[in-house]
C-alpha cells in the first residue's frame, strides 16, 4: 500500500503524482478488404495508476485488454491519446523517450511458453534485458541468477535449462524474473496466471504479491478472472468493447457495482455456496462486433435496463478525482440523461 512505500531513487513527482496517466488512448486496427473499416480495440480509455498500487483491468475476451497493455509500453503505437509516466509525457520531444520508458516499465505475458526463446537457456533469457540495457555480460548473468532465486527457482538447477524442460508455473516464474531483471518500477501483467492450474496460480499470485512489496512495484494487472483481480488489486477498471465503463476502488466495485455490465460480470462468478447457485444467466449473447460497435452506449444491446436514450447518446465516464473516486459510464448514474431510472438512483 502507498503509505509504507519508500520512494524510488528515480522518482520525480513524489507520492501524490500518479506513476502513469493514460488519457484517451485509442487504437483501431484496420481490417483488410473491408473498405476502410477497423477493429476498435481500444477506443478512448483514460485512467491513472498511483505509485505503489495495483490497478486491475477486467473484461470479457476481445474487449481490448491486451491491446491496452501493449499500448502502455508502446509495443503497439497508439493512434491517439497520451501517456504520462511520472509527470513526463511518453514519446514526445519534451517528455520521456519510449526507450527510457521501457527501462522503467516491463511486461509479463499470458503465454508462458511462447514468451521465452525456445533455443535459449532460461538464465540467458533473464539476462538479456540487463545486457541490452548496458550491463556487462557477467553482471547481467549475476542479475539473472539473483532474480531466478528471487522468484523461487534454484539458479544452478534451473538456469541452464531450456523452456521446454520447465513446467508452466516454472516458466511463468522465469517470465516474472525476466521482467524484474531490468529493475522496473512498474510491471504490466497480461493475464499472467490464466494459463496455469489453480494451485500453481495461487503460488504465482503470492509470489507477485511478495515481489511487489520487496521491489516497491506498481502493477497493472489484466485478467478476466474476477477472483484473481480481487485478490491482488487496489483499484479496478472494467472494460467493455474497447471502452472503460467503470473505475473504482476494489471494495466499492465488488460491493456496490454501478454499471449494469459490472454487475453482470460479478453475478457470473461461480458461487462457492451450493445453496446460492446461479439460475438465470446474468448476461446473454456474445459481445457485439468491435468492427461495427453499437451506437450510443456500447452495452445497450445486452443491457437489461436499456432505453431509447442509451441507443442514441453515449454516456461519459466522469473524470478522475483521486484514488477513492468510483465512477461509471452509464446513463442511470446521470440525473440529467433522461433515463427513467436515473432519478431514482
Amino acid at each position, binding site marked *: 500500500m502507498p503509505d509504507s512505500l519508500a520512494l524510488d531513487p528515480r522518482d520525480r513527482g513524489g507520492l501524490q503524482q500518479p506513476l502513469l496517466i493514460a488519457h484517451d488512448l485509442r487504437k483501431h486496427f484496420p481490417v483488410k478488404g473491408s473498405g476502410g473499416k477497423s477493429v476498435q480495440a481500444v477506443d478512448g480509455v483514460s485512467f491513472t495508476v498511483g505509485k505503489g498500487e495495483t490497478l486491475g483491468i477486467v473484461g470479457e475476451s476481445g474487449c481490448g485488454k491486451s491491446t491496452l497493455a*501493449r499500448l502502455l509500453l508502446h*509495443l503497439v503505437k497508439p493512434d491517439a491519446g497520451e501517456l504520462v509516466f511520472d509527470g513526463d509525457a511518453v514519446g514526445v520531444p519534451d517528455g520521456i523517450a519510449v526507450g527510457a520508458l521501457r527501462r522503467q516499465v516491463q511486461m509479463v505475458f499470458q503465454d508462458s511458453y511462447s514468451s521465452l526463446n525456445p533455443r535459449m537457456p532460461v538464465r540467458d533469457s533473464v539476462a538479456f534485458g540487463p545486457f541490452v540495457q548496458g550491463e556487462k555480460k557477467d553482471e547481467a548473468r549475476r542479475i539473472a541468477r539473483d532474480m531466478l532465486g528471487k522468484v523461487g527457482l534454484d539458479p544452478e538447477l534451473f538456469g541452464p535449462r531450456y523452456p521446454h524442460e520447465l513446467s508452466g508455473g516454472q516458466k511463468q516464474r522465469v517470465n516474472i524474473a525476466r521482467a524484474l531483471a531490468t529493475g522496473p518500477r512498474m510491471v504490466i501483467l497480461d493475464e499472467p496466471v490464466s494459463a496455469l492450474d489453480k494451485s500453481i496460480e495461487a503460488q504465482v499470485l503470492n509470489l507477485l504479491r511478495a515481489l511487489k512489496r520487496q521491489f516497491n512495484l506498481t502493477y497493472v494487472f489484466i485478467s478476466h478472472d474476477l477472483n484473481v483481480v480481487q485478490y491482488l488489486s487496489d483499484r479496478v477498471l472494467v472494460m467493455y468493447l474497447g471502452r472503460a465503463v467503470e473505475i473504482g476502488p476494489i471494495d466499492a466495485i465488488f460491493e456496490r457495482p454501478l454499471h449494469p455490465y459490472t454487475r453482470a460480470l460479478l453475478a457470473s462468478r461461480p458461487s462457492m455456496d451450493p445453496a446460492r447457485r446461479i439460475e438465470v444467466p446474468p448476461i446473454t449473447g456474445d459481445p457485439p462486433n468491435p468492427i461495427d460497435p453499437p451506437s450510443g452506449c456500447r452495452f445497450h444491446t445486452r443491457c437489461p435496463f436499456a432505453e431509447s436514450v442509451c441507443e442514441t447518446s453515449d454516456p461519459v465516464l466522469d473524470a478522475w478525482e483521486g484514488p477513492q473516486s468510483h465512477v461509471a459510464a452509464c446513463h442511470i448514474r446521470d440525473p440529467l440523461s433522461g433515463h427513467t431510472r436515473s432519478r431514482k438512483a
Partner: protein
Amino acid sequence: MTDTIALAEPLGTFEEQALPATRVRGYWQSVFYRLRHDPVTLIFAAIVLLVVSAAIFAPLIAPFDPYKESIVGRLKPFGWRGHLLGTDELGRDMLSRLLYGGRVSLLMGVVPVLIASLIGGLLGVVGGFVGGRSNTAIMRTMDVFYAFPSVLLAVAIAGAMGGGMANGMLALTLVFIPPMCRVAETATTQVRALDFIEAARATGARTITIIRYHVLGNVLGPVFIYASSLVSVSILLASGLSFLGLGVRPPVPDWGLMLSTLRQSIYVVPLVCGLPGLAIFITSICCNLVSDGLRAAMDVRM
C-alpha cells in the same frame, strides 16, 4: 480473500523443483551426446568424411596420373593391369580420375550453397523481421526467379556468362538464393509473431540485437537443414552443367563431365561407366542423411 489462496504454500520454498530429473548439460555437450547415440548418422558422416578426405588427398593416394592417356588401354574393365576401377574412353585411370573429380564436384556442391545460404538467409531474415513493403519487395523479386525451373535457370545463367568453373558456381549460387531466402523468411515470420520477441522489444533492445540473439538461433535450424539438402542438389546441378559443357571443361576430371563422356560407352563397360554416377549418388545421399541427423541433434526441444 478467495478459496484458492488458502491453498497457497509459503514463498521461498523451491516446491516445484524436484520434478525434472534430467542432467543439466551445455548446448554443445547435449548435441554431441545425441550424436554419439545416433549410429546411422555417425556411419554416414564417416562416409562423407572419407569422400572429402579422398578428394583432399587425391594427389597422395591416386595410383596414376589422371590425365595420362593410353591408346591401347581404353575402356578396360576393373583390375586391368593395375587399374583398380578400369579405364575411361581415353585410357585414363578411373580411380585417379574419380578421386580428382571429387575435388571439383565437392567444391561445386558446397561453395554455391554456402554463399547462397549467407545471402539468401540474410535477405530472408531481414525481410521477414522487418515485414511490410521491404519484405514484399524482396520476396516478389525472389518469386520471379522461382518461376523458372532451377536446372533451366542454372543453364541460362551459365550459358549467358560462358562456361568455366567460377561461372558455374556463380550460376548455382544465384539459383539457390531464392529458395534459401524463402526458407529463412518463413522461419523468421513464424518466430517474429511469438511473445518473446515482444518481450525483447519491451526491454528496449534494438532490432539488430533482437535479430542477433533471438531470431538467428531459431532460423538457423531450418536454414541449416535446407542448405545441407541443397549440397546434393548442387553437386547434381554442377554435374549437369558440366555434362552440357557449361561447367568444367575437359580434360579436368569432374563426376558430371565423366558421366557425360562415358555414357556412349555404357554397353562396352557398363560397370566402369556407372562409377561417376555412383559417386554422385553416394555423396548426395550421405550428405542428406547426415544433415538430417545433425538437425535432430541440434534441436534443443527434442
